[in-house]
């Protein structure tokens, strides 16, 4: 895979998150710190999970249920982490409000809270993309590329980049939805997030079974997610438009 192609794959996986970062997050330093800390948290959760699962690996690839178990446990753990994140966030919100009162500035607005949630989700998403996509790319520079048997139409790296992109989006917006759900006590929202996460994980597991079908499923899922987010939040119109167009383009590209 040439360097140019590598950069292209990296941009596929991380492009929207980069534009989100530049447009929304880089303006407010607190959000940058939130992104960094949520990335670190996700990384730690991954390390803990891998520590736990180390005893059972490597799994035989003929049966499917160990993989399912793996995915269910990881998703469960990460959702638990999300709840923990929420609790920490509540305390942080109280501290920030108290500080705002002392300083004489207005308390946190709804958009501020959503931006913090967005930053947290973005941190998770970026961590996922870096670990599951970029880690495959960097050792693979050089001539030739790699195809998987079950999906011979696209190089493996492209698939992993697209899946990473999907996960970035899922992580980012599910954090927003989850926080909103917890804040308003809206149980449908609260349960929607883990369900989507689980479904996405399962879909990836059955990856490469049917290339395009898989990817277009993924993106339809994302479109639903995104519409729900749009309904609930008030993202700036530019960001919303950009991400929506991205998703649509990819959906159509994958389902030709």
């Amino acid at each position, binding site marked *: 895979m040439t360097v140019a192609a590598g950069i292209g794959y990296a941009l596929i996986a991380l492009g929207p998150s980069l534009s989100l970062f530049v447009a929304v997050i880089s*303006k*407010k*330093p*607190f*959000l*940058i*710190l939130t992104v*960094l*800390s949520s*990335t*670190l948290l996700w*990384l730690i959760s991954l390390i803990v999970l891998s520590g736990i699962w180390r005893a059972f690996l490597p799994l035989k690839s003929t049966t499917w249920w160990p993989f399912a178990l793996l995915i269910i446990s990881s998703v469960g753990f990460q959702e638990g982490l999300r709840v923990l994140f929420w609790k920490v966030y509540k305390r942080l919100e109280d*501290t*920030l409000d*108290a*500080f*705002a009162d*002392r*300083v*004489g*500035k*207005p*308390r*946190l*607005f709804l*958009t*501020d809270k959503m*931006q*913090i949630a967005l930053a947290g989700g973005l941190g998770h998403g970026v961590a996922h993309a*870096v*670990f599951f996509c*970029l*880690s495959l790319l*960097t*050792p693979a520079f050089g001539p030739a590329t790699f195809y998987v048997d079950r999906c011979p139409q696209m190089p493996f790296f492209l698939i992993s980049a697209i899946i990473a992109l999907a996960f970035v989006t899922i992580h980012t917006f599910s954090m927003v939805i989850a926080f909103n759900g917890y804040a308003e006590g809206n149980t449908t929202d609260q349960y929607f997030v883990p369900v989507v996460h689980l479904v996405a994980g399962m879909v990836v597991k059955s990856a490469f079974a049917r290339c395009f079908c898989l990817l277009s499923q993924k993106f339809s899922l994302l479109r639903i997610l995104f519409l729900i987010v749009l309904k609930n939040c*008030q993202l*700036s*119109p530019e960001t919303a438009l950009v991400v929506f167009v991205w998703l649509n383009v990819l959906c159509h590209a994958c389902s030709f």
Partner: protein
Amino acid sequence: MAQNQRPASILDTLGEEIVRIITPVSICMLMVVILVSILSLDDSSSSSAMPTIATIAYSETGSDSSWDKFMGALLNSLVFVAVVTAVTFILVLLFYLRCTKFLKIYLGFSAFVVLAFMGGEIALFLFEKFSFPIDCVTFLVILYNFAVVGVLAVFISKMAILVTQAYLVVIGMLVAYWFTLLPEWTTWVLLVAMALYDLAAVLLPVGPLRLLVELAISRDEDIPALVYEARPVAHHDSGSRDGVVRRRVWSERRNVLHDSGGDVNSNAILSGNAGSNLNSGVVLSVASGHNDTRLAGAEEGRVVEANAELSAPLIDRRMNDNMHRQEEDDTSENLLLEGIGLGSTGAIKLGLGDFIFYSVLVGRAAMYDFMTVYACYLAIVAGLGVTLMLLAFYQKALPALPVSIMLGAVAN
């Protein structure tokens, strides 16, 4: 956007100083990682070619057993730390004897050497790697100009701050790259040893760095030093400021982030603001430039008497230490001061040694795998954040190295 019509909420500015320090550290680390991955030389060739002070006790070869390597690395690090301690004490002595001029000249000289020689060698490596056509004369002229501007940037405080910052990052990057050329075990043990040394030197009462800063406080003088100063955050209101942390805190100060009840004012521009915050707690009045200490000193004195809570707000200056040269013939060392602190304009200052050691850790991780780089980077940034928080909390001089290095080593 709707937000434009609302008053600015605190989310807009909170944490700005921290980000302003994290950004250059990240840039430095990124450049070192790029350099290391482009110029990845194998260990054996570089370590045998360069007898350095850091490997004076033991040169690692590939065939030694793990235990031998470890003992050798330990020996190397002990020698290194001993030399660094000795030189720091010499610097304290010189500062005590008011040889400031000598120190400043030495600072300029060391900056020149780093930029010209180390920068030149790395540039040559890059040219070799990419077969870049350039002739001797052009190269020398460019290099000479680059080094001289760097020396001026470090020396003179009136230079555009962006240039100064950029040059400091470049110096840190160059020295860090040379450090990554050390043999593997030596590097890791050296990092841990320097972290422990930093801890000792800053926190122990007989630590040289602490002595140095105490001297500086008692005299209200500057220490000529290579420290990175983040651009100060300009606040138009003299209300409380968030997140400004003070390193070697010698005054009582309550930090707003920890709900301690007092308001912190860290308006650090001279005159007018100094006296206005007596009720609200701390004043960090610091001189605007390296040369204006006297002015601030006078005001600080006033403020000190007026308010029992305040003691002399200090201008932390740190000694400039450069790491040991890798060239055999250059026996002069400058030591880098580690530690975070408060700059002349109230911005956070981070010693260049911290930059270097963080980058060395990440650069060494880059020799293994990209993922380790990522993990180590996050660990270091987290460590830096923790150190800043601790700083705000304890308000004492704190070394910046230990937390980050420990986390980074673990993450590796």
